[in-house]
């Protein structure tokens, strides 16, 4: 009998396991594949503060601060670098968004700075000329998520947690986790941290896959220095339900560049879609024309676990007493994993959390308004 049984050893399951183990709870983690095999391996690892809604801001900012605390103990292979983010504005219309964002962050004490065209050019000489400017958000960072997940689970293991690989959970209820051979691992509390597959364990969870493509290049140290994201997606369809692409590039500690991003709805095949890949890369070269000649090593896809209102599901699952969800993190689960684990442990321990957990509760009405 365990205190906590967690299904899924992605970054969210790993963070939850670590928090629970730190509280002295007896933890078991069940993973059907290996640590970080899901979205955690596929994602970009941008730890980023977001402002799409107050709730999203609260969770990402809280989590980012937890990342800053964790950073000093992370081993080298986690590749934590505080690169900062440059939200790139192509024209005056997007510059007004820069100013709006700046004000939003300033009011909430997030260090940021407006760059005009010249200082943007100095900060990132590879960007094409003629861009209007950017917002520099200074505390954003990048990490290599699979190794972070492994590190968190190693720490949890040191504190007595058991991590079992190759164990697919087919049922997760108030008794425990059930496997296809009919056996059950009993627990006082169960946590569904199965990412984009969370709904295959609990079909009521409003999670759908949202597919993304990424490409990684050879090593070109110093080619770009910050995570660069376009603000043009405000005008493009990146937020609606149509397939979309946006310019998003990340410098890795190795000198490699990770290039995104694409969003495709209700697609769950891992195949590479040549046409969306082509659009995604074409978009990137509109911002950095010299990218065209760089050598790419690999392209892959991953599934984001999307909810209707783009906020994760953290807390007790309806219809159960002892089953909790920690899933549905869409494109921000690396960032928000640490805060998710804190909210979960605070709920389990009946402590008052650092931020309000209501917006992420599983019971909430996730339908989007307006």
């Amino acid at each position, binding site marked *: 009998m365990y205190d906590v049984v967690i299904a899924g050893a992605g970054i969210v399951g790993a963070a939850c396991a670590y928090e629970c183990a730190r509280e002295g709870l007896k933890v078991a983690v069940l993973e059907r594949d290996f640590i970080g095999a899901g979205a955690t391996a596929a994602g970009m690892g941008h730890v980023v503060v977001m402002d799409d809604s107050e709730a999203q801001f609260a969770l990402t900012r809280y989590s980012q601060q937890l990342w800053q605390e964790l950073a000093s103990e992370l081993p080298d292979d986690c590749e934590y670098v505080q690169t900062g983010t440059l939200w790139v504005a192509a024209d005056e219309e997007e510059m007004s968004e820069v100013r709006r964002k700046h004000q939003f962050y300033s009011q909430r004490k997030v260090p940021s700075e407006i760059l005009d065209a010249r200082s943007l050019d100095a900060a990132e000489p590879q960007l094409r000329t003629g861009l209007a400017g950017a917002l520099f958000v200074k505390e954003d960072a990048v990490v290599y998520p*699979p190794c972070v997940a492994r590190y968190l689970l190693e720490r949890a293991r040191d504190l007595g947690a058991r991590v079992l690989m190759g164990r697919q959970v087919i049922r997760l209820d108030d008794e425990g986790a059930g496997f296809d051979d009919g056996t059950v691992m009993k627990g006082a509390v169960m946590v569904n941290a199965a990412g984009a597959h969370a709904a295959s364990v609990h079909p009521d969870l409003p999670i759908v896959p949202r597919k993304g493509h990424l490409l990684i290049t050879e090593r070109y140290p110093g080619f770009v220095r910050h995570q660069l994201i376009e603000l043009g997606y405000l005008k493009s369809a990146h937020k609606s339900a149509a397939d979309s692409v946006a310019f998003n590039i990340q410098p890795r500690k190795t000198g490699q560049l990770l*290039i995104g991003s694409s969003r495709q709805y209700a697609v769950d095949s891992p195949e590479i879609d*040549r046409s969306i890949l082509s659009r995604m890369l074409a978009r990137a070269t509109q911002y950095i024309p010299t990218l065209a000649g760089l050598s*790419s090593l690999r392209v892959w896809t991953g599934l984001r676990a999307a909810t209707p209102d783009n906020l994760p599901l953290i807390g007790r699952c309806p219809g159960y007493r002892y089953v909790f969800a920690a899933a549905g993190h869409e494109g921000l689960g690396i960032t928000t994993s640490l805060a998710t684990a804190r909210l979960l442990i605070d709920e389990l321990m009946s402590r008052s959390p650092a931020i309000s957990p209501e917006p992420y509760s599983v019971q909430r009405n996730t339908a989007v308004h307006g």
Partner: protein
Amino acid sequence: MTGIEREVVIVGAGPAGISAACVVAETGRSALLIDDNPSPGGQIWREQDRHGSDWQASHWLRRMHLYRVDVMSGATVIDGDPGRRAIVCETANSVSTIRYKKLILATGARELFLPFPGWTLPNVMGAGGLQALVKSGMPISGKRVVVAGSGPLLLAVGAYLKGQGARVLAIAEQASWSRLARFGLGLPKQPYKLAETWQLKRALFRVPYRAGAWVEAALGGTVLERVRLRVSHRYWEAPCDYLAVGYGLVPNIELAVSLGCQLSGGCVQVDSMQQTSVPDILCAGETTGIGGVELALMEGRIAGFSAIGDRLNAQWLFSDRERFRRFARRLQKAFTLREELRHLPSEETLVCRCEDVSYRRIAPMSGWRAAKLHTRCGMGPCQGRVCGPAAEFLFGWNCQSARPPVFPARIDSLIEHVDK
């Protein structure tokens, strides 16, 4: 960006690809031969187009020119779309989408490299690798070379290097005499039978051929200085300039896999007409199984006939093909790799040369994908072509994975090719 269309497109200009292209072109159909190396010939006929000496090579290369096979050298096929019958092909400064009615994959094989202490030192090379470099202009005369590893290629390489004036100190074959003898490939102390197969007997006169011998370590500061061999229970050490070591061949299946072709036993699966599991894609040569130049030629011709729908002419060649396949299987058995080779790497020996990942870090992983994600093994530019087969041998993992691009490709190549 150019749009090209040909009846039959052949990837790989080795013996299999060239013979397939000739069969097609001889009937007046358009054939395009694409190869990533700077001139046609593949592994065995490298540079034969310029300095021909091998009669078989000049025969086929002459026909290739005579029948006006289009050859694109220095062009790598990086991706494809069987649904649209198109492949994408990149050169140093261009990219093109090429459409086909039939596609023949003749992508050949590469050497199997296994890690041992010191294998990353400069001047430690593949056996075929050193041969290829010498063929393309590297001076070797008077240099001390040790050739090691496994398989008939070692003899071919030893003889070639000797012919070029190298001092071949030893050829170390890991398979034992008794094993070679059991498969009818060698008599104690003199590999006459084996040498005959490769017509190398005379060329190898006075080169010590040691069976049951393998490289324990390559030693040196920044470059290779000495090599240490294990010869059954003894050690043999000698200073040398180059160590040429290859443990047999691995089929280049990556392109076929990314196009959706099914595998069987690590090779591309084909039927009697060299047809793969994907419509209109055929495969011939080492990619369907390691078998040597004769088999590659035979399969290439059959694939050529198959591509133009000439079943009758193809069938004439079936029995010869079967004979060569049987011989190939016997060779494979004779040169089965010994267990000791699995224990050569030390904890610090690098297994992944692109990302410098040591044996110590890879060994505890649960499988290839976990190793890739957690240690970066196989994540460099060779895309696991070297460390994948090595890890398969060392740890028994299934290391086959192929994603586009099949080779590292320029970003503009991945932008251009779609929907054109």
